[in-house]
């Protein structure tokens, strides 16, 4: 096995092996468990850095292993995979730190961190899948690994959320499998290739390909929370805060969105998908989801539920970017995959901090929270402004590219949708900020649990991760064009690299 074959496996192993070891650890071995977690997260970052340097220099990393005649478990770390991997690896580190602080002295931590690592492993597998078969394997693994996390608290309410989550995702998986096997039966393999495997198979009957597209998008659309398949997401909010953060920013919804990207670009090929009239309906669904999610968010009093509906809306930005036929939209969609992750994880970290420190779960309880927890509220503000697309935040960068993409594709209505969504986001985020900063705090907080120590308004492991990700939200915008030698280091630069490779040198911006 060469180094280029071993690296993708090492990326998988760097969370799988610590995860399996953690399952075997007794509950009280806190130190060793923490060390394993951090070792895995940091080792993964180092591996990802190597891959980033290699891929931008044009190296190919791939590994395959035959499972059945004609069916391979195939991994490839291409530019698109790395976009998702880097996001997951970085946010995994922060979420692990946060979770260590969040779950201090809670029961069943070995189980929690074990499944947590499996969840990241599955995400890595999804990102690096070289064919639909491999994608499906890890896609379902992700469902199974997240279920115990969602129901971690073991209450009947948690179980209800978990059951709804399972019902949606297993059904989605079944539909996806149907599409995949059908495709396999038609063309004999399911490889992802740049430009799309089907683009050279115009001889196949279009109605079959369209049905396959529909089945696959329905399947991954459940995790991407496309309306009307989004019902599980607000219900899954019963999970502990680090799980919500991971589910929303990195793992589950992104797996769905990433699946859509792969299916459109590398199974059908964006031009062939356009030819089959598949992109316009997809754009419509995405636009509807964006507006519907924003509208619903505005009416939620539960803070995490409001954030959940905001996710429903924001993830469809990615889908919309993909469905806008053209490189500008592609860049906007891909860069939002990363930007939305950073911003949303900040918001969930902050929501967790309010809940853990003061017992605040509802928007209406947030009055004056900014005075008691200024740093958390500052981070929350940055995240919220980013979601609205305010200047100097990552959100503004994605939105600008998406709007350009919509204009270039001649879809003026999509620009309108994006503006409407910005206004609606302002409508549901600004009241929160207003309450937190400007209203007087109540006489007593709902259930204060963590006392402040000087500038440290809550436990430091809870405080630092949101501050870092908030800083990253700003940095991603300020340094958007930065590159390190020839290696693109910002999400935007990397998304442009992918778009250039996807559309060819022909019309790369």
């Amino acid at each position, binding site marked *: 096995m060469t180094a280029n074959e071993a690296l993708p496996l090492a990326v998988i192993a760097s969370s799988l092996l610590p995860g399996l070891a953690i*399952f075997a650890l007794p509950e009280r071995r806190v130190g060793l468990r923490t060390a394993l977690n951090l070792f895995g997260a940091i080792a993964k970052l180092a591996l990802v850095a190597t891959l980033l340097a290699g891929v931008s220099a044009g190296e190919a990393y791939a590994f395959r292993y*035959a*499972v*059945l*005649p004609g*069916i391979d*478990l195939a991994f490839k770390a291409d530019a698109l995979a790395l976009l998702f991997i880097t996001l997951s690896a970085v946010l995994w580190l922060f979420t692990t730190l946060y979770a260590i602080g969040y779950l201090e002295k809670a*029961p*069943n931590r070995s*189980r929690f961190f074990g499944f947590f690592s499996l969840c990241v492993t599955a995400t890595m597998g999804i990102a690096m899948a070289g064919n639909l078969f491999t994608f*499906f*394997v*890890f896609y*379902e*693994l992700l*469902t*199974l690994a997240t*279920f*115990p996390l969602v*129901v971690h*608290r*073991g*209450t*009947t309410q948690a*179980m209800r959320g*978990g*059951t709804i989550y*399972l019902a949606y995702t*297993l*059904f989605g*998986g*079944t539909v996806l*499998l*149907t599409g995949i*096997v*059908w495709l*396999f*039966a038609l063309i004999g393999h399911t490889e992802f290739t740049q430009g799309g495997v089907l683009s050279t198979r115009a001889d196949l009957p279009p109605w079959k390909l369209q049905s396959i597209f529909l089945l696959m998008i329905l399947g991954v659309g459940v995790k991407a929370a496309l309306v009307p398949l989004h019902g599980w997401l607000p219900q899954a909010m019963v999970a502990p805060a680090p799980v919500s953060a991971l589910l929303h920013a990195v793992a589950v919804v992104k797996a769905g969105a990433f699946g859509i990207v792969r299916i459109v670009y590398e199974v059908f090929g964006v031009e062939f998908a356009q030819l089959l009239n598949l992109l316009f309906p997809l754009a419509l669904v995405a636009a509807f989801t964006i507006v519907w999610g924003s509208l619903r968010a505005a009416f939620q009093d539960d803070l995490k539920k409001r954030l959940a509906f905001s996710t429903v809306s924001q993830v469809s930005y990615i889908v919309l970017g993909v469905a806008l036929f053209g490189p500008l939209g592609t860049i906007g969609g891909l860069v939002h995959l990363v930007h939305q992750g950073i911003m949303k994880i900040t918001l969930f970290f902050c929501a967790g901090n309010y809940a853990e420190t003061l017992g605040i779960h509802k928007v209406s309880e947030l009055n004056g929270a900014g005075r008691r927890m200024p740093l958390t509220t500052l981070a929350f503000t940055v995240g919220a402004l980013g979601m609205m697309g305010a200047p100097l935040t990552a959100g503004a960068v994605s939105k600008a590219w998406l709007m350009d993409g919509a204009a270039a594709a001649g879809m003026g209505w999509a620009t309108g949708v994006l503006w409407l969504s910005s206004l609606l986001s302002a409508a549901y985020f600004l009241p929160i900020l207003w309450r937190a900063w400007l209203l007087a705090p109540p006489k007593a907080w709902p259930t204060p649990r963590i006392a402040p120590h000087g500038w440290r308004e809550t436990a430091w492991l809870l405080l630092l991760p949101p501050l870092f990700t908030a800083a990253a939200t700003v940095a991603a915008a300020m340094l958007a064009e930065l590159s390190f030698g020839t290696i693109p280091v910002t999400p935007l630069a990397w998304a442009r690299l992918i778009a250039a490779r996807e559309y060819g040198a022909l019309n790369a911006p």
Partner: protein
Amino acid sequence: MVWLIALPLGWASLTVLLGPRRGAWTAISALTAQLWLAFELAQTVRATGTVRHAVGGWGAPLGIDLAVDGLSAAMLLLAQGVALPVAIYARAYFKVRSGHPGGVWFWPLLGFLIAGLNALFASADLFNLYVTLELVGLAAVALVAAGGGAPQVAAALRYLFATLLGSGAYLLGVALIYGVYGTVSTATLEPLLTVEAPRLAWIAGLLMLSGLMLKTALFPFHYWLPPAHGGAATPVSALLSALVVKASFYLILRLWIGPFAALVDRIAWLPAVLGATAVIWGSWHALRAVRLKALVAWSTVAQIGYLFLVFPLLGDDRIALHAGGMQMVSHAFAKAAMFTAAGVIVHTTGRDAVAEVAGVASRLPVTLFAFGLAGMTLMGLPPSGGFLAKWLLIEAALARGRWDMVVVVLAGGLLAAAYTFRVLRQAFLLPPSGERRRVERRPIAVLEWTAFVLAAASVAMGLRGMEIVQLLDAGT
């Protein structure tokens, strides 16, 4: 090859003399040796094709012919591979129930059962197959009855009735075939049985098929299975569900693709329709089962249904055959794992109701993990062996445009998820706080880990599909 039959017969008799304690060790060490023998045999078959042996130097048509091709070798390997962990489980299981009458009889009966299974998988003539089938059936009935209580004996009697009726029908069929053709060797019969075969041969085939379907507990002949499998001692349930029902299915498959290949096209829809009904019916009952072991037993009814779906899909591309083989192998491991895991839960909590397993997730994590992994195989979720079986089955169905079967397979997977998670979600719930302290026993590590090993094996099949397919194809 002969050792695989002679050895278990030998230790079966020996364990009667040695008593349960030393008998258990004898059985476990002999099974280890058998596993190795089966493995060697599989290697030989893969390398050189079908291995034949004429017992005592007398070949067919006079003597007893043994023949092991890829399918047989896979089944032999499967039988030893499941029996060894279950035997280790059984030793610990019966040790803590020193007064349990089943513990005394378990070891000799296990020996006869394994000998019967191995002989069945290696036999190449219809009459021998009948003898081995009878041996397997009687040993299995005795194992159920050895549970002791009145419900077990009642279940065993029902089971006995079903198995005798089944083998009776089979024997009648064999007799008719012998009457028409004057031979019972499958190899000799193969060119004789053509589409122009006399009506008597058709009747014989149908008799044999229905007898074997009864023994495999295919819907609507499944009525005897849930009480027998759900009520027996846990290691017995595991063996019955994992191996015994597979034996008669193996026989159907063997005859279907062998001597009767020319006759079966016209009735291929029959087992498939019954199988599809079994998938739905069994899953439905598993969803409603009150007792944990009953749930697992009904799941067997459903999973057997999948096996019968392959018949209309069998063809030159062998995909359906691979699907059937994969499903047999992975279901055997998964179901043994699920029964053994359920046994640990019942043993530790002292309760057998699905509704009462709350809190098991934190007290028996290994067992629950085993249950979950086994469930993964049953649902057909990747990366398990069950997933590959499901994939192949859908592929074969699509290749013939059978969308109806695709729907059955997928719906069956969702139903399996529903009944598996019925248990898992209970297990993850916090135990009700106000409840008085339960009578609980300490978990036994050997029991937990054997369940886990079986479950892990069923999942690992999903990564070694290539080897299994190659073995199934060997010697054809």
